[in-house]
């Protein structure tokens, strides 16, 4: 059996012994709000924590990404990245307070992605406790501006500016344990906003209802023919509009995502939706706008790539079932740049993006144990084909 697999039970035991440090980091970093584009305070907090744990180099880069480097023993070896996106969907700007019990940690954003950021902050100490030293530099990054309109900007810019070679990357997501992503679908996320012009609100003309107009858009999108191959899907995942029960709605919006195995198919469908919006604009004489929020290209690591195989073996050894789905995380940016990368989940949780978001503490021990095991494998060349 490979060394990294043999070491897993010891890793699990030792990580459990320092669980207070890990929970503290999750709480202390996670309680600092970090809505996309407003991550500065959390970035400073993370860099301070990394520095307190004697990380060799800690810095906030020119793009606002907090970065910590654990120096390796062989200068010529490329770096291995560990990444957990810093921003959360929360729009809170005041401090939030997490609750901890014997079993769970709960609070806004903990499952996306504050727990993973807290684990990232703990890694220098975890690796020290496990007596692990690597040939490669281990680069700990919590990129900013990843979610929504951020469109993974922090990660894209960091990679563009990174001076040296990169051997591989592990992207961390708080949930779910067992998650093993090694490919991403082509994707475009968009928003369609419909608003009724002010003069129509005053009743000078027949007044259209923004919700009904948006309904027309939805029906038209549902009428689009989607191929079975390449696999393609349009998800209408957000909707809002109107003011109250008895008033004609002045505005309405939907958020949608086009996903496909093919970049070309996503582009074509986006163009179709653009045509739908143009058509409805003309027939209803309302202001209706299509806005692209983010996009990704389809990328993938082979399912039998050594890194994927290592990650699968680690999960099996931990007795966790692997679940392989496409991912829209920083993974795709690495793969697009030809860098082998995977995304793993750290624990189980509930109420992903809601007020009652929570993660479980005990499964996290196994989730974290994946990281040193993967680092051992990657440092010994699992990514170097």
């Amino acid at each position, binding site marked *: 059996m490979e060394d990294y697999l043999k070491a897993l039970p010891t890793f699990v035991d030792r990580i459990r012994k320092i669980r207070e440090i890990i929970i503290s980091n999750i*709480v202390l970093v996670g309680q600092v709000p970090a809505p996309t584009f407003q991550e500065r305070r959390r970035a400073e907090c993370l860099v301070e924590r990394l520095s307190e744990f004697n990380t060799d180099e800690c810095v906030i880069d020119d793009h606002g990404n907090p970065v910590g480097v654990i120096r390796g023993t062989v200068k010529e070896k490329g770096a291995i990245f560990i990444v957990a996106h810093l921003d959360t969907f929360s729009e809170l700007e005041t401090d939030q307070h997490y*609750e901890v019990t014997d079993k769970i940690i709960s609070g806004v954003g903990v499952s996306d992605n504050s727990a993973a950021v807290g684990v990232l902050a703990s890694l220098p100490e975890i690796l020290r406790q496990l007596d692990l030293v690597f040939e490669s530099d281990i680069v700990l990054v919590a990129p900013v501006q990843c979610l929504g309109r951020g469109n993974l900007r922090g990660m894209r810019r960091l990679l563009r500016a990174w001076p040296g070679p990169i051997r591989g990357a592990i992207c961390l997501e708080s949930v779910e344990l067992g998650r093993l992503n090694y490919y991403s679908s082509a994707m475009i996320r968009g928003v369609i906003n419909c608003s009724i012009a002010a003069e129509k609100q005053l009743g000078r003309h027949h007044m259209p209802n923004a919700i009904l107009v948006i309904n027309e858009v939805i029906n038209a999108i549902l009428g689009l023919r989607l191929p079975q191959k390449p696999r393609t899907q349009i998800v209408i995942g957000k909707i809002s509009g109107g003011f109250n029960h008895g008033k004609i709605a002045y505005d309405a919006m939907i958020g949608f995502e086009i996903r496909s195995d093919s970049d070309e198919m996503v582009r074509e469908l986006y163009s179709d939706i653009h045509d739908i919006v143009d058509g409805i604009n003309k027939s209803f004489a309302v202001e209706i706008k299509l806005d692209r929020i983010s996009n990704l290209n389809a990328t993938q690591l082979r399912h039998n790539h050594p890194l994927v195989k290592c990650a699968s073996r680690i999960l099996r050894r931990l007795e966790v079932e692997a679940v392989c789905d496409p991912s829209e995380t920083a993974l795709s940016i690495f793969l697009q740049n030809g860098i082998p990368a995977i995304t793993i989940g750290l624990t189980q949780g509930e109420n992903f993006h809601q007020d009652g978001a929570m993660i479980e503490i005990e499964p996290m021990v196994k989730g974290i144990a994946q990281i040193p095991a993967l680092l051992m494998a990657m440092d010994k060349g699992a990514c170097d084909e």
Partner: protein
Amino acid sequence: MNEKWIDTNTFHHSEFKDIGRLVAAKNEKKLSISLCLPTLNEERTIAKEIVIMKSELMTRYPLLDEIVVIDSGSTDDTRKIARSYDVTVYQADDILPQMERFKGKGENLWKALYVTRGDIIIYIDADIKNIHHRFAYGLLGPLLLGDRIRFTKAFYDRPIAIGQNKLRPTGGGRVTELVTRPLFSMFMPDMTQFLQPLSGEYAGYRSIFEKIPFHIGYGVETGMLIDIHRKWGLDVMAQVDLDRRVHKNQDTKALGRMAFVIIKTFLNRMETLERMRIQQQIHDEMIQYQLVRNRLKPENHLLEQHERPPMIEIPEYRQKFSRTTAGEKASL
């Protein structure tokens, strides 16, 4: 009034954030430190306090030697959760069980003196939502880095939680401003320099705490300040700015009951110090009114004054800590 005290004896927690320096000072002085968390139904906050203190001030830096939870009989999972993080948990009633039993925070603090082993004891309320290890190292700093200070008291901005994720940035400390500060201004102006005399976080040498009585309820902080001031003077006392403390809000009626007990404790001390003579009996009941079906109905709350004697007067304590005399002169 000693107006200089507020300048010389007021600190900010950031002055002590070099925890390694505190640990070195502690080792040089050969001291041990106990953290006591008094609890009553704190299942929502206790684990976070333990985890952060243990992680930052025991595992990473050996500043604290033990964390002890003293519980007043919680009916929720407070004790179970605390035990799951490997700290020592006591029910207050199980400590010195041969003595008459009382319920209250002061009772827990007093009994902590018997079960903890530290030369320095730090008390931190268990309901703090924004707990951070500065609450402990900030209070310990003046005690460890100098030889003059023997007791430290916290002060802070006190936003109060008014709902999920909502904070009111001013307020809190209402009993301080409406009751304690006026009383101190009238009778003990020196003490007005304590910005938050009722704060629930303080630290001090065992040699101080064991020689003062402990009020068992809300009066514990007021009584403690007056007693330390009386025995050793202001110079051994200090206050530390801990920035921000977010805690549960209490309704006005509850604050009224708190004020009742604090006034009683204060008057009791004034009589003991022979600064005031009260010529009538002071009642033990606080009477509040509530509207029930358009009629005002009185609610009588019995708020008895109970006080524990200085711990050094308890034979079991003297035996356990090899103290020889109970009535020794106030020494540090």
